[in-house]
């Protein structure tokens, strides 16, 4: 089973890297970019086939390590 965990900064948290990317896009002349926030994507392969178990394991992984929940939100998707 394949899964994807997406980690993004909570709204209101300053994201200097996103700001720098936003500036670079504007200087490249890419039209219509209002703002950029940078995040992380983890593509994870799971050994079992139980979706509920997989989801629980991924949530545990995100809470314990993949995200710092002080500043980040995460989203789990199973494929």
């Amino acid at each position: 089973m394949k899964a994807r965990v997406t980690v993004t900064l909570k709204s209101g948290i300053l994201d200097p890297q996103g700001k720098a990317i936003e500036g670079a896009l504007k200087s490249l002349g890419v039209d219509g970019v209002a703002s950029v926030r940078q995040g992380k994507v983890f593509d994870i392969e799971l050994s079992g086939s139980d979706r509920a178990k997989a989801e629980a394991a991924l949530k545990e992984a995100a809470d314990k390590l993949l995200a710092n929940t002080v500043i980040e939100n995460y989203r789990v998707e199973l494929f």
Partner: protein
Amino acid sequence: MKSAVLVFPGINRERDMARALKLISGKESAMVWHADTALPKGTDLVVVPGGFSYGDYLRCGAIAARSPIMDAVRDFAAKGGLLLGVCNGFQILCEAGLLPGVLMRNARLKFVCRDVHLRVERSDSPFTRGYNAGQVIRVPVAHGEGNYEADEETLKRLEGEGRVLYRYCSRDGVVDEPSNFNGAAHSIAGIVNERGNVLGMMPHPENHVEDIMGCTDGRGLFAGLVAHLERAA
């Protein structure tokens, strides 16, 4: 003072720290490997030094914070043991949940490596008793992610409980915008936990302890710890 310095892969300030501790306490530090599960018996002070543990992968300090030795460190702190995290060590203690908040990328995106001035906010802590309240000290920083952030409520608690021990300031002790080079909330350079036995700070006091370094302002922190432990003994 019996000190232990933790060693993680990618850490690079552990010898500076051990040298400073030896110089000021007169005793060798134990170097404790991250995969160990116990601290040496009778340890009075545990130091998490600076560097780039695990190459700053995932988030600064995130992987080191989940190392086997950290369970023993957590127990040690829970029993009131003195725990000091410097630079990457501060990031590790935040990631381990031993201190609140998080160290974000410097607001101006620059890795800053130079001397800065700190105002010592109070002198009645084991980590500051070698200084006077309001004293200004000069110590080096070397980090790209030292911008301390926490939610409003946490910041209010830190301030209300007097848990900000060190703040970035100008040469004459004024806490202002230009001296807050990394954009930290409330110009925070170092904070303690609720109980006051765990300090995290971004600057490197261990690098200003000998005349050859051009400044010895960092000595007070270690001398204060030695004095505190001698009095407690």
